[in-house]
């Protein structure tokens, strides 16, 4: 007989995890598909009864995306422009049914190389808050994700929130996804861009690429090259193949060859930067 726990407060959940191994369940959109035609005999800890984990809140110097915040919650939330890219990613996750159930935290915990939330969260320099009965720690998203389907999460921890440090109001962002059909599609490549302006030039550029390595990767050389460039449509010209190829390690699979992924990444970066550069330049 398996166990199904659905506590209404965090302490109880963490205590339960302290006592025995349990599979954590949130929106179930990764959990159930992994069990088609197989018995549902996991011992489960369902987080969805814990009201404190819901919602997206302004905490002064950062935003708190509760562990139960769904893609739809994010799309509907009133957030500054630096979240536009993440919102676009949310709109591209599965179909509306998936967006209504799937959580941003669950997306990170599932740690698929093609997790659409990862690039923009990496570019936003978000942190993951991990809570256990006796501890709370925070890890940058890029450290939380350790590999294909692996994370730094300990068996006695749950992710309680994703924390996004605030950026200047003028910061803007973008997300581009490449897939072989329009809806319900796993990304072949996706990129997340966050640009913080300094006057009419790039003050700070943070760029991450997904589905081209076991975890989403930032592109430090390109970020450095962009710094100080003027915000206009020419921004995309800063992209060169080299920094992309040194950081990323895509695989060949049915969705695309490694070579194609690198090639497409460069194109998408160029387009994403040109568009965002032009938009920000016009706004500045």
């Amino acid at each position, binding site marked *: 007989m398996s166990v199904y726990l659905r506590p209404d407060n965090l302490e109880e959940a963490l205590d339960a995890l302290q006592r025995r191994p349990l599979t954590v369940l949130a929106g179930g959109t990764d959990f*159930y598909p992994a069990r088609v035609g197989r018995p*549902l005999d996991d011992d489960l800890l369902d987080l969805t009864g814990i009201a404190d984990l819901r919602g997206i809140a302004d905490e002064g110097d950062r935003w708190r995306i509760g562990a139960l915040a769904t893609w739809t919650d994010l799309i509907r939330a009133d957030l500054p422009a630096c979240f536009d890219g993440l919102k676009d990613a949310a709109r591209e996750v599965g*179909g509306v049914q*998936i967006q209504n*159930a799937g959580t941003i935290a669950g997306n990170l915990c599932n740690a698929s190389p093609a997790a659409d939330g990862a690039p923009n969260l990496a570019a936003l320099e978000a942190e993951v808050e991990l809570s256990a009965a006796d501890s709370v720690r925070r890890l940058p998203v890029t450290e939380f994700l350790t590999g294909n389907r692996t994370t730094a999460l300990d068996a006695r921890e749950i992710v309680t929130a994703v924390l996004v440090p605030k950026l200047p109001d003028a910061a803007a962002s973008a997300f581009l996804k490449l897939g072989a059909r329009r809806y319900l599609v*796993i990304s072949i490549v996706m990129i997340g861009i966050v640009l913080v302006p300094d006057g009419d030039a790039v003050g700070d550029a943070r760029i991450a690429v997904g589905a081209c390595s076991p975890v989403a990767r930032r592109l430090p050389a390109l970020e450095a090259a962009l710094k100080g460039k003027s915000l206009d449509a020419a921004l995309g010209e800063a992209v060169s193949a080299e920094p992309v190829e040194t950081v990323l390690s895509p695989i060949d699979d049915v969705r695309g060859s490694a070579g194609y992924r690198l090639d497409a990444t460069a194109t998408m970066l160029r387009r994403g930067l040109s568009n965002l550069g032009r938009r920000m330049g016009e706004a500045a």
Partner: protein
Amino acid sequence: MNIAAAATTLTVNGAETALRSPSATRLADALRCELGLTGTKVGCDAGDCGACTVLLDGEQICACMVPVAQAAGRNVTTVEGLARDGALSDLQATFLRHGAAQCGICTPGMLMAARDLLDRNPSPTEEETTDALGGVLCRCTGYRKIVEAVLDVAGDRTCAASDTAAGTGAAVGARVARLDGVPKVTGGDVFGADFAPPDALTLRVVRSPIARGRFETGDLEAFRAVRPGIAAVLTAADIPGSNAFGVYPVGKDQPVLADRIVRYRGEAVLAVVGNAGAVAALRDEDLPVSWHEEAPVTGIAGASADGAAIVQAGRDGNVLARGRVVKGDIERGFADADFVAEGAWRTSFVEHAYIEPEAGWARRIGDRLEIHVSTQSPYMDRDETAMILGIGEEQVRIIPTACGGGFGGKLDLSVQPLIALAAWTLGVPVRCTYTRPESMASSTKRHPADIRARAGCTADGRLTAYEFHGDFDSGAYASWGPTVADRVPVHATGPYVIPHVKNTSCAWLTNAPPSGAFRGFGVPQSAIANEALLDDLGGQCGIDPLAFRLRNAIRRGDETSSGQVLEHSAGLADCFEALQADWDRERAEAARINRAGGPLRRGVGVAGMWYGCGNTSMSNPSTMKLGISADGQVTLYNGAMDMGQGPNTIMPQIAADALGVPVERIANVAGDTDRTADAGKSSASRQTFVSGRATQIAGEELRAKILRLANVGPAAALEIGDGRIVLRDGDAERTLDLRAMTQDAEGDVLAADGTFDPPTKPLDADGQGVPYATYGFGAHLAVVDIDIELGTIKVRRIVAAHDVGRAVNPTLLEGQIHGGVAQGLGLALMEEYIPGRTENLHDYLIPTFGDIPPIDTILIEDPEPLGPYGAKGIGEQALIPTAPAIFNAVHHATGVRLRRAPATPHRVREALLAAQEAGHA
């Protein structure tokens, strides 16, 4: 099993309800099994198809991924909650009127997603509509009529109301709304998985995890003995009759349960039968089976290699079948040519991906067996099941359930012999529903093809020669491989007049799932090569692609490559001509767009098609029966299976006009082998043509009988009322008293049947003869945008012209065309089944709402004298020209010829780069 804590209380369709299912149970299962709300469908259990979409507190959600516990205290609305007091909601009625439901398996999910949208946004745009419904897949409709319906509910009201009450004699040609449509929009339709008696046991198939090898089973009795819920574990040894089935009378080669040897991953090996809970608790690994894997024979190259292992003993060289059509003198044909074009193409395994997985239930009643199953071929199911059980055919009764899509994939046996065997031996009802991965791993596929072809023409653009060879990967068992080998050489030249032809084909056995029947039987593959060569030749002689096709189009009086002279219905040229205006406009527009440069290029392509209706040079009769009961009920005993394509509607339309009554008077009994005669299989685009003609004959016979009895002239008007028929012929009025007549077993007092077998002649060794009584023709125009930097292709518009002989029901025909286009688009751009890799609807991609462009349909009516009121088939025709038209459009945009289907973005980009390097583009 989860600890069943206290019951979960929630509100379902407005009523307070308690669920006892364990907390982790999928809400979809609890709704269906515990509450009997089977309107919520399950197509994948993985969030991929959206068929299970319900509203949870007013928001659409996949009920297959919601644990019952999460619904506690919340409001669930299912499709059963849409109609109020027995009246359809606006949304449901609009779906019906627009033909937005074909098979209906996706319809509940579509309706719930649409409800969610409209509640939030009463007048959405098209884009908002596709965004909101994008999480539900449909394999039948091509989505366009669903979008139209949703926009129409929203107040657009652009659709001409369907002709629900077409008058006497006017049913054929009318837009009669699907007669079996109401239960499809209420969730009331009963599909294969929707019902079984409460005492039914559940059957689960254990399948081979290896593509080739041997296996041994351990002590199955000991396994069973310690599991009280398990009633039996059946093996090949339990099969009383013949453990070999197949669609052909000779060459039945596929075991129901493999006997020591397995030939493909997904092959059935054991059948475990028990109560639902005990069966669900099992894992395949629990069964005592040891596997000895051997290197599989993979692909055509693997099957044909020197020293290749043999897939089936007795089939040396792994050759399943060869086909050949030779006419004229091919050498001379090429000698006569001023220009020659040639090339090689390759296509992939394509999965039918009907949204309803295989399902059904069976029970034994005395010495008879009753099988309720989702099928395209009830009579073949009956005969094959009888053979497998070693009992008489009349001992088996097939009662088809609603069929949630087939496309050829539900012609072959799946669950039928397994549930039959279990019910027969155990004496209790037994049900079985395949999981999505099981359906995909075990069922038949479209044949992958390796094609080489060459064509020649004169300087003024007349085709002189065509040489073609197609190798087809037929997988581990025969299935419909021989049909593909036969059909392809007959059709490979396309619908063009070519004096010198040499077309050959070979179907190879490999350790892959059996390739079988899939909309077009190999012709969609060969058309890709054919239509590319035509463009290349047109280019060489400087003739516009559409003009080049018109110059060579086959017309009445012309001879096919099988030496058949087309005597009647041959509206191909009309189809091409119908595209001319769009062609001119779209080509000009593309030129304008491409002058601007940039990464997005516009291309416009065209392709033609032809396709023989009915089986190739084989008798394939249909018999239909029509009866009138003592109280005046007219019943059509209709054995033509409706899998969404429409026989439940068009056969009554035809019967109504033939008999001379309004279509609403006709009740339809669908495909019960005890009550309907054999109307053959729903395949080969034959039902409208063959069964439709049989229906017309039955109707005319019955009418003649009535007129004779009443002694009135042929123009008499019939009024069938309660217990009598009143006939009026001019001033004369006669009444037949039905209650005074003798009733037959069905309770009918007047009845007639009609049989039609399309006349064909055998093909000789060179493929010369009359393979088909008639052909459907068509032409598609595709407008595409290709992003040359990313290799992505977006189809922007399709114009589809089809010669259907006579449009019995334009709405249904448009639906078939839209659905065919969608499957053709999938074949062209995204669909690739790889055993063990793309066995679910997450990794195997079919087109979604956002992938299907607007489709303009043009119906051409060049009447076929043999067909009912002139009608011919459309089911397969509609799919064939789409992929070639798209590929030709890509060539137009870029100068690059795509030779590999599906043309996924990386393949397209690689082809563009290769052409750039070679200096072609």
